[in-house]
């Protein structure tokens, strides 16, 4: 089993002999891998290598054909999505294509999980409204877009809305699928800054899938290469480009 960081730390995300594939292709060929709690890593690989699939499996959103996925000590296959939240496993997942609720406005996209888990998270009506505004502000979604449907937002706004939604329940497991894809400068900044803060947060286990090594160099996180269904440590990369820093105003609530 590939394990990163110190052995004495608690397990965060564990993949145990995970197989997954479609009719003719096997994308994940018996992967055993562990990411410790509070640590960060990136899955690298060519387009079509199965990075997104691995991320979905690791987040417990799709079940592997065989093998087990654990968050902490909890095997995910035995827990429904809401049971996971009740057990303190709060997942944030930013989808490559958004995965936003198309028939709900921007504000509702973010506030829905807060209302749904209102009692588990101990939130009042006012706290829900405040937190929704807080994460929308963090993702730099302008207030005039709060009542707009995702279809009426620009690509960058949609991407940032996806990030805001994933941050709403204060996740302790954060998965980000292809953060580099087709971003404008503003969205790229927000994305990288949020990822940097999540990486620095010891309560958050962060897993990113990307085809670009520039991101992991900037974030200074270990990379793992997915190729032919196997995961292996990626070769060392060069240092982060100079002049790249995090603006101070962004603080994840």
């Amino acid at each position, binding site marked *: 089993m590939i394990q990163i960081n110190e052995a004495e730390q608690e397990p965060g995300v564990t993949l145990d002999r995970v197989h997954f594939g479609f009719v003719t292709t096997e994308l994940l060929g018996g992967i055993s891998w562990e990411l410790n709690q509070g640590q960060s890593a990136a899955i690298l690989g060519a387009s079509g290598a199965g990075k997104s699939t691995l991320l*979905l499996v690791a*987040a417990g*959103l*799709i079940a592997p054909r065989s093998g087990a996925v654990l968050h902490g000590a909890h095997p995910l296959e035995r827990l*429904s*999505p*809401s*049971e*996971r*939240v*009740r057990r303190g496993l*709060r*997942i*944030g*997942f930013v*989808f490559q*294509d*958004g*995965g*936003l*609720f*198309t*028939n709900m406005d921007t504000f509702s996209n973010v506030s*829905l*999980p807060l*209302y*749904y*888990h*209102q*009692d*588990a998270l101990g939130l009042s009506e006012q706290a829900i409204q405040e937190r929704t505004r807080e994460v929308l502000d963090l993702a730099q979604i302008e207030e005039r877009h709060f009542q707009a449907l995702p279809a009426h937002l620009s690509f960058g706004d949609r991407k940032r809305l996806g990030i805001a*939604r*994933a941050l*709403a*329940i204060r996740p302790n497991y954060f*998965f980000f699928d292809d953060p580099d894809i087709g971003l404008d400068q503003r969205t790229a900044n927000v994305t990288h800054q949020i990822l940097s803060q999540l990486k620095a947060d010891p309560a958050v286990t962060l897993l990113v899938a990307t085809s670009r090594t520039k991101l992991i160099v900037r974030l200074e996180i270990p990379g793992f290469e997915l190729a032919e269904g196997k995961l292996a440590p990626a070769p060392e990369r060069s240092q982060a480009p100079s002049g790249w820093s995090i603006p101070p105003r962004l603080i994840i609530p």
Partner: protein
Amino acid sequence: MSRETHPPSLLEQLGARTLHVVDVAQSLIGTLWWALRSSRAPGVGAQAVVRDLSARQIFFTSFQALPMISAAAAFIGATLTAQTELLGGAFQRETAGKILVAVVLREVAPLVTAIIVAGRSGTAIATELGMMRVNSEVLGLASLGIDPPRFLIWPRLVATTVSVPILTIYFSAMAILSGNVTAFLIDSHGLEEWRVGAMLALSPLDLPLVLIKTVGLGLLVGWLCCYYGLDVGSSPTEVPQKASRAVVASLFACIAYNALITVLFYWLFGAAVT
């Protein structure tokens, strides 16, 4: 070296078909089971969200269908009355009233209502859920700790199961009213006889019969349409295919279920009703 492939034998085809049917049956039962199970999961916030969704689905499925149900009921009530009147001397007016009530309340109203709900709301359910699958919205719900069966299937099942009985009663009332008006327009003198016949046709057993039929029909429509909607993979081209299959399967299931309940009912309680 090329490998020679043979077309599958009849036995292999039969085996594959059987496996497919077993797989579909398993998935269908799984859809209903997960919806029922998840509806009992704890969470006050979740209950409030799902209750709100269910209310909106009921509004869409029943209230917004009223104009269509009214028109269909009026036409069917008028047509049946006109037909029985056309038979002339073969029927007394009292008999014409009896026929209208028996046929409309016990058979036509539940089935036509279920067909309208399947055509209108069933298509919407299957298409919406299919598009949600394609757009990764279902995965999005799960990623936020929201149980898709509870959030997506349960409110729609509740809506169709509640709406079909309500709409059936409304349909019957409108069809009988329309029949009454038609009978009056044809011959105002025999209207009292027609009304007596209509009242005589009613039996106390009609209530459980209509309830069993309509609750079952509503459940079938919601269940099948949710199943086919969520059976969409990742391609948008699958959405209209699955929506069409959902409606066809719902219609067939409704017709078969309606016939089964009618036969069972008259086998068990036929003497009491007649």
